[in-house]
């Protein structure tokens, strides 16, 4: 299965838009321990229902916790522990994609040439790969705008991309 290393921002948004379980079904989702503590500590689980979902998925092994080792990244950009460990893990695992919804973490990923993905793109890609319906994808993107605080221009662009893929599928069906 394709490998995805997620930081707190991506885990939270995937949970909030109702796609975390689906992502775990189709991808090897790995997080460093620091990220797990940030989003799903005992205190978080008590206060946030989506933190409880992350905790359940972690205890079932659907989200794997892996240490990046004791190495530290030497880079001109500082990151918080969980974000840095997620990036380091993505580098160490080699073929992994870094899932993050943080601009500074993306800046750091670019510095190390680590391929990254943001949650709206995950939504569009899940639809392209026929893992979710058009309706589910659209609802998830709308949630990313409202609850996930994605900028309206990104959500609008993502919706256009989603519709283009839907139309492409429809046209393919017509052709066959």
């Amino acid at each position, binding site marked *: 299965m*394709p490998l995805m290393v997620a930081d*707190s*921002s991506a885990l*939270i948004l995937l949970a*909030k838009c109702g796609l975390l379980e689906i992502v775990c079904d189709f*991808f090897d989702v790995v997080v460093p321990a620091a990220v797990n503590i*940030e*989003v799903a500590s005992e*205190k*978080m689980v008590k*206060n*946030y229902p*989506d*933190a409880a979902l992350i905790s359940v998925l972690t205890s079932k092994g659907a989200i794997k916790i892996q240490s990046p080792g004791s190495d530290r990244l030497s880079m001109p950009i*500082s*990151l*918080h*522990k*969980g*974000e840095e460990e997620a990036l380091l893990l993505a580098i160490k695992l080699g073929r992994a*994609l870094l899932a993050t*919804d*943080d*601009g*500074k*973490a*993306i*800046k750091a990923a*670019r510095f190390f040439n680590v*391929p*990254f*993905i*943001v949650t*709206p*793109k*995950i939504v569009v*890609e*899940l639809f*392209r*790969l026929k893992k979710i319906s058009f309706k589910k994808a659209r609802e998830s993107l709308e949630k990313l705008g409202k*609850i*996930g*605080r*994605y*900028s309206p*221009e*990104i959500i609008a*662009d*993502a919706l256009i991309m989603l519709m283009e893929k839907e139309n492409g599928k429809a046209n393919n069906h017509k052709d066959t």
Partner: protein
Amino acid sequence: MAKPTTIRIPEDLLNEIDQIVQELKLDRSAYLREVLRKGFSMDKQDRLFEKYNRRELSQMEVCEELGWSPWEFLAQLKAKNFHLNVDLEDWLDAAALEG
């Protein structure tokens, strides 16, 4: 322990403060301390969010400074009507998933 400090306050503002303090039967120093604390906290949040928007701070770095969880951070973005610091270029450059 609280330490004394001196600041100059415009007379009209001081009059208004005194009026409120009298109306609410509050201790002026305690009231001013509370107002200063609230104002400073809001200013600190604003300054950190500006740095976050400029991508000088990450989400978790802001959380660390403010003692927030990432869940609280998202709730605060909504309350302040702010957006994530991911820009259009990030969205366009994001990788595709392998099937």
